[in-house]
């Protein structure tokens, strides 16, 4: 029983990491940049959702509101920050690290502004459906309708996004713009607009991650909540484990990370919660540097 519960906890946490990882991969696949501010954007989207819930009262309205808000904000960031970055800082020794530093700065700015507007105290979003575990033969599983919902959402997102990328013209444009922007331009693709779209999609995915991270816990969230730092790191690690280029890899990476951490916490020590992701990342990168699904092309940025 404990085994099953550990597994289930891991899968649930993992699926939320997977959502975050999907956001990272979306940005990477469309612009070849890692957006360290992703969790900050997810946090901001959660606040958007909160505002929606406070006014309208329904989580099901809050979800799309958060997604749209997240998408718009992400698009704005790409339009302003990223394009400025390309213009001013794409050569010289700083070129490789400039996007990293800029997105980190953005993370700090978002956090500060959130605290200024909404304050630093805990706010609450209540889950839309029950988070009480299913019962089987009298014992309660650590798996509830809510957790099932999270899994379903992840699966649906994965399928929809994969179809988008692999089967549609827009997806082709996105992939071409990321792999070879010049060739894409010469083929008539509006590369700049496409990259913005990639960020918008990532913003929406991040919003879903942020909302579910909140309601899956006790529903409380705040700018300093350790949950979001963890979401940032775990989401990124999950993306890397999966091989930064693949959406499926992101999901598998997330699940793998979640389950592994869960077992480590249960069977080794619960104090390792914060250091476990790091160690798992090191081990995975050591054994298989290209990630679960990644292609062996060398870990260049």
């Amino acid at each position, binding site marked *: 029983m404990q085994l099953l519960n550990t597994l289930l906890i891991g899968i649930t946490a993992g699926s939320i990491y997977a959502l975050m990882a999907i956001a990272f991969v979306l940005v990477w696949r469309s612009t070849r940049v890692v957006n360290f501010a992703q969790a900050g954007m997810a946090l901001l989207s959660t606040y958007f959702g909160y505002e929606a819930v406070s006014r309208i009262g329904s989580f099901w309205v809050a979800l799309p509101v958060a997604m749209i808000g997240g998408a718009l904000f992400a698009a704005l960031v790409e339009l302003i920050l990223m394009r400025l970055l390309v213009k001013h800082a794409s050569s010289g020794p700083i070129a490789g690290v400039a996007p990293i530093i800029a997105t980190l700065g953005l993370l*700090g700015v978002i956090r500060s502004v959130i605290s200024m507007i909404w304050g630093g105290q805990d706010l609450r979003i209540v889950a839309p459906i029950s988070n009480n575990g299913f019962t089987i033969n009298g014992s309660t599983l650590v798996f509830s309708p809510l957790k099932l919902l999270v899994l379903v959402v992840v699966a649906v997102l994965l399928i929809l996004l994969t179809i988008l990328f692999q089967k549609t013209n827009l997806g082709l444009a996105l992939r071409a713009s990321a792999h070879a922007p010049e060739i894409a331009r010469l083929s008539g693709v509006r590369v700049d607009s496409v990259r913005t779209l990639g960020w918008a999609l990532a913003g929406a995915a991040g919003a879903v991650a942020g909302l579910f991270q909140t309601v899956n816990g006790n529903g409380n969230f705040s700018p300093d909540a350790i949950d979001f730092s963890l979401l940032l790191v775990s989401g990124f690690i999950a993306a890397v484990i999966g091989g930064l280029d693949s959406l499926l890899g992101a999901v598998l990476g997330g699940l793998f990370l979640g389950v592994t951490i869960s077992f480590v916490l249960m069977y080794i020590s619960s104090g390792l919660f914060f250091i476990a992701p790091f160690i798992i990342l090191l081990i995975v990168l050591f054994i298989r540097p290209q990630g679960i699904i990644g292609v062996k092309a060398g870990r260049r940025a």
Partner: protein
Amino acid sequence: MFILGGVVLYFLSGVVDELRVYQGATIAVYVIAIASIILLTGYSGQVSLGHGALMAVGAYAAAVLRIEFNLPIILCFVAAVLAAAIGGALLGAAAARLSGPYLAGTTLALAIGLPSLANQFAVLGGEQGLLFDVGFPPLALGEEFTQYKWFFWIAALAALISMWVIRNLLNSAYGRAWRAGRGNEVAAQLAGINTARSKVLAFTISAGIAGLAGALLAMTIGTVSPSAFPLALSFSLLTGAVLSGITTLGGVIIGAVVLVAIPEIADVVAHRLGSSESVTTNLPGLIVSGLLILTVLFVPNGPVEQHRARKAKHAAQHTSSKKKDKH
């Protein structure tokens, strides 16, 4: 040059008030820490978001040795450097295959994970942390020599020594190897440089220096605890390095001063505006992060480098116009 700086600081510490002396000590700590980032990121091209964690390693090593074995302070600091350097070597070895965002993300994970380990082991003091007491200033310096002045002297001396060491390292063959590897790793390898070893070396040295900074930070605060080394610290260090000019050692003092000055300035600004509490507490963070973005966008190589480049451009235009006159 360094001796001159030392003399200047000696006089300064005599005339300024306690708060400034304390801030001076903190600035010295930041100078050391930022220099370690410049070495690693600016020269060797490896981004680390985990230097806060390496500082923590140094700080804890120093504190534990002091408490458990009551070693003389000098040895504690040496231990801090060694402990952090070992950590850096391990991290560097793991990181040698990574680059860019992968490395950044890995060190980010470390920055979040490592300090929390302190809660695991009793000897590390848990959440409240350990006391780190460097002792009183020697009586030889007179009755009026305050604790904070003592801190400042130790930190400033350490800073001067570190800067001297780092400067020589950067100008040596090691420094050249780092820069070569940063620019084009394949070309560097073809030129006979063992880039992997060079990268790990950079990490080791950078970590050791960060460890020293960590121990000194512990000295000024008086305690070592996980909360003294949050993720924000690692980010601040990177910010300071970018503000100083990530490829130039000369600008280090700029970044350090800005990092210490920001909370004060933010405080003043917030009070002038008469804003709410939530604004005042968050303004420093906002300014620091905002500065980071602006700097990396518009002054990516730092003010010192920007100035040098502008001078060079002027000189080039001057000579070319001179040439035109000759025709």
